């Protein structure tokens, strides 16, 4: 991955401006889908709608964990072996979609998860699942700080940098290193989530 960063730097730091379309940092077409998810989650919470709560939690959580692990363990290494232009083109199309998808699935998972736990009595100190839930809160807390405080700012900054006439490859490489440094922690947290949630569901 270090080679990747250096390659990007050498390709993009110098030379004339590239003639390429502007990247739409927030894909506006995705916003109605995200808004529909927010409305659906709100209705599920307001109506204490058991099926909808479980659907949002399972679907959102499955996508969140699946996307995180797939991108980190499968897509990441493949990307590392692609040519630099292919990698840049992929990132330009992929990262804006993540700006919409990830906050939406995280919101779906967390908002409904808390309601389900409350409804099922798992939040009570006497519940056998109580300590597992506290562990899951901590896991989510770590992932939230990494995602919101470290990765999302880097993601948006990379997209803005790629929109410049001559992107600074060294800077993009530096920002992308954040993804490499945190991939291991995020992967571990997601595996912990799978263990915790399957324990909670079977106790």
């Amino acid at each position, binding site marked *: 991955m270090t080679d990747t960063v250096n390659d990007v730097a050498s390709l993009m730091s110098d030379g004339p401006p590239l003639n390429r379309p502007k990247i739409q940092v927030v894909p506006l077409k995705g916003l109605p889908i995200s808004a529909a998810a927010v409305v659906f989650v709100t209705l599920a919470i307001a109506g204490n709608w058991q099926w909808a709560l479980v659907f949002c939690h399972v679907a959102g959580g499955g996508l969140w964990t699946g996307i995180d692990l797939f991108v980190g363990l499968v897509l990441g290494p493949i990307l590392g072996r692609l040519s630099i232009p292919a990698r840049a083109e992929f990132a330009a199309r992929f990262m804006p979609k993540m700006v919409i998808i990830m906050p939406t699935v995280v919101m779906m998972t967390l908002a409904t998860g808390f309601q389900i736990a409350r409804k099922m009595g798992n*939040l009570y*100190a006497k519940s056998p699942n109580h300590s597992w839930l506290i562990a899951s809160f901590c896991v989510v807390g770590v992932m939230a700080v990494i995602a919101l405080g470290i990765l999302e700012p880097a993601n948006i900054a990379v997209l803005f940098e790629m929109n410049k006439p001559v992107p600074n490859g060294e800077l993009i490489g530096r920002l992308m290193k954040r993804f490499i440094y945190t991939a291991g922690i995020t992967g571990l947290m997601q595996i912990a989530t799978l263990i915790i949630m399957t324990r909670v569901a079977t106790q």
Partner: protein
Amino acid sequence: MNIDQTSTVPSSSERSYPPIGWLSTGALAMVIIGGILMASYAPRKAPLGAATTLLVVGASLLLSAGVLLVSVKDFSRTTFFKVFKWAIFADLVTAALIEFAFVRDHTNGESLLIVTGMLAVFTLSVPTTIAFTVARYAED
């Protein structure tokens, strides 16, 4: 005499800035820990002293970031606000949903006040981190 100005003026990626991003991320971490504390006691009443302390520390870190942000020079405020307004829109939706869930769960009184304060810090800290990270590398 010709002087190459570009060699003496650092580019946006070389300029050094105060740790605004780290301060706002620290604020986020404080309110997330506070949120975990509050949630782990639900539906009982959480120890409000610890939660209030975390909120005050989080708010202080965010305030420090804000003060540094106002005083920083060679910084693209246009880009900062352009990104900030989008990010705060997204985080307001999330915060409103969390607040709604707490109200729906009959959280009230001091607990609701602390949760609202934490959500306010959350709503301001994430856009600050994102917008600062983008704007510090902007050239305009």
